[in-house]
């Protein structure tokens, strides 16, 4: 167990109830030292409550929290080596950029010369030099976010918490800020824990993540692992999956689906349930191999060029009327042109069919 406490951040059996609402239910979480970890979940799933408990802005009803082997459960927010980038940024409206960033250092009675040096360094790292005397209301959204980051990082925290850091930014700024955030974390080596409801953000930023719902962690693992094999329909849909297919066992590894008989490598625990295939895993060919498992004849309903390849919408071609058939979305990397109304052969590789557990909270 001691090796567990040695984690960067460890939450053990954390519970929190607000009135009748159970925000967190006996939640366990461990984050490695020096990684970017994402807590992903829909609004109201308890992810912000968890973040606030780690920051010391909320007390858990029960449970313990360890940071780099030291217990911080009973420390006040002002006594924790943890800093937060708030969703609203929460900049002090009456203080300029310099004073906002210097706040944490001055609150700990750091000598003036040290404060000036450190604030100067972090502001130049954030490319904010020259804006020291601006007040928050004179800054753009992106600049405000950089001030909030600088204000937290200048204190050299052991853990940085980010609450929906991209939510107040314009779409075109997000990619840029995501890259900057990754680069910054690599440079400083600080543990980052961020909370978001946006699966793209999680995919872009973090190495590992946890998906939360109704106060519990539903799935936990490396980003690649979670995205390629979502545990159940909730996680799959939350990660943006659309191709979720009904399946029932025929024999051995073969399952009956609306798109014909499919072999699956990862044999599910159920006889009747749902499986998932990601759009970029579906193969489109000129013609289907007749009467082979995992192949069927498809009819292209629509196609859009997305920059790298084609986003294709297709359905099973059942001869005459195909209207009632379920549709699939496919990311085709082939440069070959595909027309709407064209007939194609579609192949589901057995190793890319992901069986989904039933949505249930009992692990």
């Amino acid at each position, binding site marked *: 167990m001691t090796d567990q406490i040695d984690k960067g951040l460890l939450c053990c059996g954390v519970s929190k109830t607000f009135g009748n609402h159970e925000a967190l239910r006996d939640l366990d979480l461990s984050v490695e030292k020096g990684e970017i970890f994402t807590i992903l979940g829909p609004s109201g799933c308890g992810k912000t409550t968890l973040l606030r408990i780690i920051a010391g802005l909320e007390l*858990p009803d029960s449970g313990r929290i360890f940071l780099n082997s030291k217990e911080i459960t009973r420390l006040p927010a*002002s006594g924790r080596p943890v800093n937060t980038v708030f969703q609203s940024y929460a900049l002090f409206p009456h203080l300029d950029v310099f004073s906002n960033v210097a706040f944490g250092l001055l609150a700990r009675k750091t000598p003036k010369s040290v404060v000036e040096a450190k604030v100067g360094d972090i502001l130049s790292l954030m490319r904010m030099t020259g804006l020291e005397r601006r007040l928050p209301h004179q800054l753009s959204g992106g600049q405000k976010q950089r001030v909030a980051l600088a204000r937290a990082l200048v204190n050299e925290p052991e853990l940085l918490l980010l609450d929906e850091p991209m939510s107040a930014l314009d779409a075109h700024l997000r990619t840029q800020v995501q890259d900057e955030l990754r680069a910054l974390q690599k440079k400083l080596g600080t543990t980052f824990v961020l909370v978001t409801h946006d699966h793209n953000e999680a995919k872009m930023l973090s190495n590992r993540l946890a998906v939360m719902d109704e106060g519990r962690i539903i799935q936990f693992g490396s980003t690649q692992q979670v995205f390629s094999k979502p545990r159940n329909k909730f996680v799959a849909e939350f990660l943006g999956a659309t191709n979720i297919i009904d399946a029932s066992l025929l024999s051995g590894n073969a399952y009956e689906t609306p798109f014909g008989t499919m072999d699956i490598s990862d044999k599910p625990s159920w006889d009747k349930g749902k499986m998932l295939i990601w759009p970029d895993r579906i193969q489109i060919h000129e013609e289907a191999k007749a009467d082979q498992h995992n192949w069927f004849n498809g009819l292209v309903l629509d196609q859009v060029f997305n920059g790298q390849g084609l986003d294709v919408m297709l359905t099973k071609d059942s001869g005459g009327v195909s209207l009632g058939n379920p549709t699939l979305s496919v990311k085709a990397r082939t440069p070959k042109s595909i027309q709407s109304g064209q007939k194609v052969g579609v192949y589901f590789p057995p190793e890319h069919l992901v069986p989904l557990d039933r949505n249930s909270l009992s692990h």
Partner: protein
Amino acid sequence: MGKKTKGKPGPRSGHVVWRGELTSSLALRLRAVGLAGPPLLWLTLLLAVPCLMLGALALATRGQYGEVVFSFTLENLKRLAGFGLYGWSPNFLYIILRSFWVATATTVLCVLLAYPLTFHVATRPGRTRVFWLILIIVPFWTNVVVRAYAWLLILGPQAPPARLAAALGLIRDGAALYPGPLAVYLGMVSTFLPFMALPLYASVERLNWEILEAAKDLYASRVQIFMQAILPQTRPGLSVGVIVTFVPSMAMFVVTDLLGGAKTMLIGNLIQQQFAQARDWPFGAALSLALMAMTLLCLALLRRRRRQRPGGHAEGVLSRLG
């Protein structure tokens, strides 16, 4: 995860995090009482309790030398209703009715002047508008005694208005235009017009002019435009204005004292008399209670009206006009 780190309660009992600060709920309560306690005690002892004492005092009687004798009678309330030593006389009831009437007339006059005034200010361009607004704010703070005094000057015997009136044969030569209703209403309206105009302006400024244009396009008459488009939209400001005009003008005593005579006596003057001259505190307390009851009645009536008709729904207005 293992058992070693599990199952223990998190924080110490009685601890809370309040606005980011870890503290005990007892300390938080002590801090709240320490800050709010003294001013609350002040307000209770010097405001709430004396107001309640007024009620008790109204049931007492005046002793021989002006002292208060706690006899617990309804004598004062009977006197108020007109049953005095010398039989029934409606004098006090007249004064109460007159207070209502003067307050109503003052309020109506202020509304009639405030609408054009606030419309004019609201339609001024940018900087000019701020200047006009300040012009309304400044008289808000003119001392009521100074203003009444100024009207004495203006309406005095040798001043142009009095001379004009004398030349027209309305008053006798060398007389002043006070005391009398004209002087009282001039004093009242000039005192309370800023009270009406400022809250009304807040509503007029936010007026949706497109609705007025739409109303005009629908060939609504001016009265219709006012009743259906302007009134509902400015109702919040208007009701605040009516409250802050009507309530204090009912209790007014400076203006009527300086500019009016016995015939314009209001309940405020009567209260002042009981406390300052007649030294009949119990009766003064009864009069104060009557005034307070009138005030609360008006507030309750206005609040009910406000709740019944929440004005300012653009769609509703347009559909009613169409």
